[in-house]
């Protein structure tokens, strides 16, 4: 039985799900070219960086001039162009030659124009990027299957209530038709009791199911105590790994330089941030707001490019917390073992906010140690290693040397 009303609800729901995926990014060329080639030094409508703000650049200069400038600013200056020399005088830094085709430059200029228009338009949330109508829902691209399920459950409950009423009405009608008197309405508790007595099997099954469910659930709940997989705390700076490691493709080791040398990978010191952010003063998502926090920590004035005396350290929230009783050394895994950062930390390059990917439980460690093969031949450290039958499986047939086989699951490797 398909309720006509239900169909009316489900259809828009289904559409709601399909739509976000249907919306595709518009203007791929211009935007990505800008990000790849220009964004390090220029912004659109967000102020000066290393080079000038490019907003309304088309209004200032002709497209022809721009084409020449972008191709080679130096030769344009040499040709004696007054504006080119003026710009150079202002910024005192030469813009590197860009190896872009004229069509690509045009695409970039188109992107700058559209961005400039967007920036000058009054702040409105629903400015369409590509013109197609993507609703605000797309922004919260979170997991909404829960709400769908909830909705279905509500609908089903309503259906059940309607059906019960219908059944009761029909029973009443039959009793009226057959002349059976209405049974006396017992107090609710007694009615429950009566019902329970007549449905012993159901209750027994329900109790068993409930018992099993709650013990299983409880077991897992208790096993989860102290495990903070998925832990994603707020940080003092809205630093995006997705932007830095993902889009900008900065190597993890660049900032977490301890990973190859030390037990801790280390939260980078602020001077590491400044290596880039001395030049890059504005980000694509948060503008200057978050980068300003780096400057504030160092008491750095970006305009005068000087450091003040009132620096104060940044207090980050640790995402990965191993208990004190476990000793873990990054360099052993990264440098010696050649383990990729992502093996334990997950796709960090896709995380806007850093998140604990692995459970970091002992079982999780041990499982890896049991299955990971050690490449003995790659390291002279193992020159003295001799396979021992006892450790190599019962008959010494097991030829794969795993971490476990060289003692990697012994207690005092991590606990001391």
């Amino acid at each position, binding site marked *: 039985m398909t309720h006509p009303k239900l169909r009316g609800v489900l259809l828009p729901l289904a559409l709601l799900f399909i739509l976000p995926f249907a919306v595709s990014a518009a203007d791929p060329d211009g935007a990505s070219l800008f990000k790849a080639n220009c964004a390090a030094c220029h912004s659109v409508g967000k102020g000066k960086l290393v080079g000038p703000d490019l907003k309304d650049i088309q209004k200032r200069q002709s497209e022809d001039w721009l084409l020449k400038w972008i191709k080679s600013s130096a030769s344009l200056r040499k040709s004696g162009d007054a504006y080119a020399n003026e710009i150079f005088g202002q910024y005192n830094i030469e813009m590197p030659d860009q190896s872009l085709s004229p069509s690509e430059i045009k695409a970039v200029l188109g992107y700058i124009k559209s961005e400039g228009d967007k920036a000058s338009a009054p702040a409105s949330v629903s400015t369409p990027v590509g013109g197609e109508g993507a609703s605000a829902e797309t922004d919260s691209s979170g997991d909404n299957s829960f709400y769908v399920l909830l909705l279905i459950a509500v609908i089903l409950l309503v259906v059940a209530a309607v059906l019960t009423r219908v059944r009761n009405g029909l029973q009443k009608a039959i009793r009226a038709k057959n002349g059976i008197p209405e049974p006396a309405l017992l107090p609710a508790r007694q009615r429950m009791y009566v019902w329970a007595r007549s449905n012993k099997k159901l209750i027994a099954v329900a109790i068993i199911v409930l018992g099993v469910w709650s013990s299983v659930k409880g077991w897992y709940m208790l096993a989860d*105590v*102290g495990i*903070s997989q998925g*832990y994603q*705390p707020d940080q003092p700076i809205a630093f995006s790994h997705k932007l830095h490691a993902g889009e900008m493709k900065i190597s993890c080791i660049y900032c977490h*330089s*301890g990973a190859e*040398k*030390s*037990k*801790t990978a*280390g*939260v*980078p*010191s*602020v*001077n*590491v941030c400044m290596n880039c952010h001395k030049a890059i003063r504005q980000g694509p998502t948060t503008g200057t707001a978050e980068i300003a926090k780096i400057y504030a*920590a*160092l008491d750095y004035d970006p305009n005068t490019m000087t450091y003040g005396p009132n*620096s104060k*350290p*940044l*207090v*980050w*929230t*640790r995402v990965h*917390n191993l208990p*004190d*009783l476990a*000793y873990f*050394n990054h*360099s*052993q895994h990264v*440098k*010696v073992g050649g383990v990729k950062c992502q093996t334990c930390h997950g796709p960090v390059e896709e995380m806007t906010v850093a998140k604990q990917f692995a459970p970091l439980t002992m079982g999780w460690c041990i499982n890896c140690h049991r299955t990971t093969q050690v490449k003995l031949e790659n*390291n*002279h*450290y*193992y*020159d*003295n*290693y*001799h*396979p*021992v039958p*006892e*450790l190599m499986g019962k008959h010494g047939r097991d030829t794969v040397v795993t971490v476990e*086989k*060289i*003692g990697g699951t*012994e*207690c*005092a*490797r991590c*606990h*001391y």
Partner: protein
Amino acid sequence: MEKKYWKGLDELKGDVEFVEKANNEFPEEIPVDEVFSRKSEQPATPRRDFLKFMGFSLATATLASCEAPVRKTIPYLIRPEEIVPGVANWYASTFSDGNDYCSIVVKTREGRPIKIEGNKRSSVTRGGVNARVQASVLSLYDSARLQGPLAGGAPSSWQEVDGKIKEKLQAIAAKNGNIRILSSTIISPSTNKVIADFTSKYPSAKHITYDAVSYSAIIKANQASFGKAVIPSYKFDKAETIVSFAADFLNSWISPVEFANQYVQNRKLRGKKTMSRHIQYESSLSLTGSNADKRIQVKPSEQGIALLNLYNRLAAFAGASTVKDKPVRFIKSIEDTAQLLWKNKGKALVVCGVNDIYSQIIVNAVNKLLDSYGNTIDIENPCCLKQGNDADLAKLMEEIKAGEVSALITYNTNPVYTLPGAEEFKTALQKKVELKISFADRADETAALADFVCPDHHYLEAWNDAEPAKGHYSLAQPAIRPLFKTRAAQESLLKWAGVEMDYHNYIQDYWKANLFNTQSKYTLFETFWTDSLQNGVFDSSMAPAAAKEKETPENKKNKSKNKAHRNSQESGSENIKIDLEAASEGILRNSSDKNGDWELVLYEKAGLGNGSQANNPWLQELPDPVSKVTWDNYVTMSPADMRGKYNLLERGDNTGDVITLTLGNTTVKAPVYPQPGQMPGTIGLALGYGRTKTGKVANNVGVNAFPFVQWRNETFQYTAGNVSIGATADKHEFAATQTHHTMMGRALVKETTLSEYIKDPKAGNEEELFVYTSGKESSKKKSEELNLWDTHEKPVHRWGMVIDLNSCIGCGACVIGCQAENNVPVVGKDEVMRSREMHWIRIDRYYSSDMNAEKGKEEGKGSMQTLREMESPSDNPEVVFQPVMCQHCNHAPCETVCPVLATTHSSEGMNQMIYNRCVGTRYCANNCPYKVRRFNWFKYSDNKQFDYNMNDNLGKMVLNPDVVVRSRGVMEKCSLCVQRIQEGKLNAKKENRKVKDGDIQTACAQSCPTNAIVFGDYNDPASEIGEVAKDERCYHLLGEIDTQPNIYYQTKVRNTPEEKA
């Protein structure tokens, strides 16, 4: 429908009151009011409610703890280039506190020093450290340290203090008032120059050097004998025969770390079968006496006469003129000693620890007869330690009492505590000296009286240099930024002298001007400086001329012979000043005025020394090497005397009688502890205790023995005759870590004599065979053939240690080294009394006994009587030391009894202890035959009951971040420094190489000044340990139970003549 039955008419009627009552038949409300109101005297908290509360709080606490705490992390703003968080940095530095000197390397983590180790590049201390130097890192984090300057006892600022002091000093200088700088020995040439600068600015200023324990008699005697007011350098490694008259040169005498290392060079039996013979004449059983091959008990009053007799015997051999002497009871020993010395002429060394000029002159004469100068004594390159001048100090005291001193600046010294007439000095100081300045790091006994306290940096925060022996220099560099607003004393002096200069630059200038030109290796001062700083040491004697001596042994021998010859001739010409007759008369005069009951000997303990680091809980809890008592000093008395004369409680549950000691006007109350080997009629008392103003740990621990120091013949005497003792009704409890004193006939420490060893290298280490019966067959087998267990395989490494009992002198440096490395808590006296000390390594000390099983049988004594007599040590026992830590058994008894597998075996031969798996059954400790497991009876960190370093944030900075701090209820024990092993392995892997032998050192092996402990990998064919383990002297402790430990011991060999063995 069901019938309803009524309980009564009331219910039927629906009486409101009844229904309410009926519903409340079993009131279940929590009687909060009753519990929390204080209406009645007795709180009405019934047991059930208590349980309810407890259950509730337990549940809430559990729930609350489920939530992981949010942990913050604060990275550097600008990371210093040399620091990688998580990786230790090492800096070469120097420990020199006016008493000890050691060249060291400091381990720092994230900018804080956490461990001190010996600097192997030093040619003076050769990588050795002692317990005090090891523990000095904890003194850095002492919360009793002053956090800034004090003016009149109140906190002040440097600016204010400087202004006032300058003003006062100038006023004093203007009226030509005397300014005196009183310090302990300063071995820093730059500091001496600073003082010179200061005195040139204030011409009325004078620098006086005074050591709490003085050696000025040696200096004076050398002045008299050779015209050189120095302490010579001694070469114990060159001596075949060492005779010491009360010089505790392995523990406290002049430069013990240096001497201990030299001493064992001729005691080790690696690759050779000769060793030196060491004879000790002394009253109290010292650490050095414990290690002697022959120890002769002598009263302090007999020491001088013994020396005279020895001189006369030797003079007879040499045909020199003799002096007057007096017969002694132990003339046979003196004759034997004289013969032995004469036989080893040129390879003999006689030292004397008595601070008496006459005795030292005789010792000089003895050494001259024996050709020691140029061979075993180097007077040309003297030692620069212990330059204190007692006569100067006496003069200063007179001046102060006469009101002639206007300003007194004390640096690194605490005269109010260490001077014998302290009370008198104190009042004179308070009344007659108008300006008193102290550089003390805390408001100690002297600083408390000062007008200004200008706290000096801790040595780990400061720049300094040192010249421990002529031509040997070392540098100290800061390993941490100053924790408090302290300032280097040198900078303060410079400032008051009107020189605005950083002390760091000052040292550099000094080195540039004075040391840079003594070498030819470096042409640039900058490289010379950075290399010296990195090495920590610089030997200016390493000039080409000195290097040439590294030639063939024969050549060398000839050369030294020539040199010796030359030297003896030279010193012969200066001979005129030795007035042996006067010395002999002086000795005889002094020895005749002892007519009292008791003679007192003051000594320094391995832990506290002269007491300057008393507020260090590690040192307080370090068991005395000989008596094994912690947290105390006490009167040591021969057990025979205790029984005979006074009927004192000899030994019972660590309780002792308190007696009074009286000498002249001085009376102190101190407990008596039985000390086998103490000369009857003499008593001993340790210096360094009884501090009153040093901090919460040490205040009023023990009694101050300095008031017994005597002034005689221009020097301080650390022995006294005419001491009388009186009984009191008081009892005192001792916290001793060892209460059994003999081996009861079991060969825990295997011993033999040198002659036996030469005959058979396995002597004393004979294999024990066990009867094995299978069916009707019966045979004798070795313990390892009777094995129930499978072997553990060791595919890569097998770590272990070999401990040479011949080299171990029992000093205790390893105990502190281990404590610093492994976050071992301090438990306090009370817990030590319950045998709950937590040290992972202990040094067992056993005395020999006059009784043994055979002798008991011969004399027809019952077995019980024999055993009882075996328990008591001899009157003059032989002593053995044995460091015992977890033996890392391959067949470990502890592993089989753990119900939760918290202790397991690793594939590298280690017995692993997993704290977080441990549930605290203590089965393992009960099953351990070596008793090396320690149980955490309490939480020792963040616990007010254990108010030591782990209870405050400052003290916790010393903790090693690679080792977990154990919590209550778990077992712990030696881990073989697994964190160091893991680190060493990881470094090898990172560098794509095998682990090099010597890369990894356990804390105890590193600390050992005599290198008695060799750590390494038995699987490495090229390792030192692989070589040593093949030695015939190696044995397993309790080998008969076949636990197959990875720790080996090597038989102790004594160089005793055959007739005695």
